[in-house]
């Protein structure tokens, strides 16, 4: 039973009478994998994390972490998990080392074992030189690294990362991604991360669920989700300048090809199955005496996936959310 690190069954959460934050969310995460919850702000990602980390109780449904029920066995769940919240939760008036020490003590660690662990974490998060500095003077990236190190002190089996890179500048974000990938590849830790960055989910998560308005609207690997869209972008670099009409006529016989556009000696088109269409396209071009230099096929992005399942772009969804909050 223990091969599933996280199981969520029909989780619902209501706040008061009119806020339905979660509306029956189910998913499971296998041990040692990275699972992403992707969705706009307010979709219910953070609420899901709060329930799975025993902070909040579901109104209906159940969930377990490493086989322990999050409501009836909360104490056991807490020993298994590490949590990195959206913003830094380090004590800014204390040093990095003191923060890590208290965090270990919360998990009943102590003595040599704890001090060794602190040293090795400071080391691996490039904070060794700053261990005895007060956190108030840290840069955003340093504080973020400390927050993650704190969540790892007690060697959790499951790590929750709630919007790990929100509010970080691009450089630090790239650094964080590297850090998270490394965590995922070593030690067989299970990671659940929430994000509203499509790029981030694509890059880090082996499996992901797209959450919209408290429900999961799609689930699978990033690639599988994108494949369902059945529309690969194809770009063919042409040997010389050609007319739009000429090329369109040449490709008239190719099945499932649409949106043919010539732009600066590059042919852009959308194909249901890119890999299969390419040979046909090339021979059609050849037959018409049009030379082709290069071919690229690109999968649809998660942006497109979100648009398909939620019926709106993520940007639009966040805008609506903000308007609701403001109203």
């Amino acid at each position, binding site marked *: 039973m223990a091969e599933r690190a996280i199981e969520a069954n029909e989780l619902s959460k209501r*706040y008061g009478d009119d806020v339905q934050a979660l509306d029956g969310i189910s998913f499971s995460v296998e041990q040692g994998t990275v699972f992403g919850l992707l969705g706009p702000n307010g979709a219910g990602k953070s609420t899901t994390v*709060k329930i799975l*980390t*025993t*902070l*909040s*109780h579901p109104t209906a449904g159940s969930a377990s972490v490493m086989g322990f029920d999050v409501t009836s066995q909360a*104490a056991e769940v*807490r*020993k298994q*998990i590490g*949590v990195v*919240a*959206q*913003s*830094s*939760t380090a*004590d800014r*008036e*204390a040093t990095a080392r*003191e923060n890590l020490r*208290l*965090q270990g*003590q*919360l*998990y*009943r660690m102590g003595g040599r074992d704890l001090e060794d662990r602190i040293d090795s974490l400071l080391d691996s998060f490039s904070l060794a030189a700053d261990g005895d500095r*007060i956190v108030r003077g840290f840069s955003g990236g340093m504080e973020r690294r400390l927050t993650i190190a*704190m969540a790892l002190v007690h060697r959790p089996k499951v790590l929750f990362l709630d919007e790990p890179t929100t509010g970080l500048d691009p450089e630090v974000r790239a650094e964080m991604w590297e850090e998270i990938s490394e965590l995922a590849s070593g030690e067989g830790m299970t990671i659940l991360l929430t994000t509203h960055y499509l790029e981030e989910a694509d890059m880090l998560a082996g499996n992901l669920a797209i959450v919209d308005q408290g429900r999961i609207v799609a689930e699978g690997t990033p690639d599988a989700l994108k494949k369902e869209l059945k529309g690969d972008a194809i770009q063919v670099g042409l040997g010389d300048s050609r007319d739009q009409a000429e090329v369109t006529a040449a490709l008239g016989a190719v099945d499932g090809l649409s949106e043919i556009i010539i732009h600066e000696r590059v042919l852009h088109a959308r194909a249901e199955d890119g890999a299969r269409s390419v040979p046909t396209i090339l021979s059609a071009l050849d037959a018409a005496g049009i030379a082709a230099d290069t071919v690229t096929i690109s999968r649809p992005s998660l942006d497109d996936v979100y648009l398909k399942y939620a019926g709106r772009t993520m940007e639009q969804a966040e805008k609506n959310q903000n308007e609701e909050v403001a109203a």
Partner: protein
Amino acid sequence: MNLFNDTWHMAQRHIRALIRQPWWIAVTLVQPIIWLVLFGGLFTNMEKTPGWPAGVTFHEFIIPGVIVMTAFFSAGWGGMAMIDDLNRGIIDRFLVSPVTRSSITTGRLLSGFITIAIQSLIVLALGWIMGADYPGGPLGMLVLILIAGVVGFGFGAFSNGLALIIRKEESLIAMMQFLLLPLTFVAAAFIPLALAPNWIEAAAKFNPVNWAIEAGRSALLDGSPDWGLIATRTGLLLVFGALMAAFATRAFSSYQRTV
């Protein structure tokens, strides 16, 4: 056992912060010093009022009151740090760990107790420099400090509980201000209750601040302290503290329900 360890670890965090900003203790001492110097100077003639306790100077009389009030004020503001921790997600970080829930409050109360003990010693020393005599001796001082600590525990728990419920610094300031002054003046802090209007004397019977001042004053200033009075008042204060601790615990679970 876990509760004691957890409380101590949590308290260390606050104690360290205090040691790093020692000026904070100085700031909280401004008010008691103003009371001692200003009130002490202004109202010395109170000593000549009929009904004033024999052999006690005005200075000496107000020292236990100043100590208890200092404890009560600094504990009353304790909730502000709780709100800060709530806003920064630090409380949630504690809650997702196996740490004893109550240590989140008891750690603060323990560090508050230590602060109160330090402040009390400073006020006692200041009073002594200004010529006050403490017939109760070291035992009297110790009892007074412990009583101030118990007051601090009760009001600290109350302030923390309130912080968890209202979660806004402005509202907590308003609530505490609404409470602190009346409780200070419906007590025998500056004059014996016998000299106060009857309604104040009656109301003071229900005021934990007054229980502490009366007991602490007897311990510090009476050559032979009224141990019966000290015991009953301390007992009442412990009951008050237990009620406030229960309130803080309830407030905690109400906070968790809203997460």
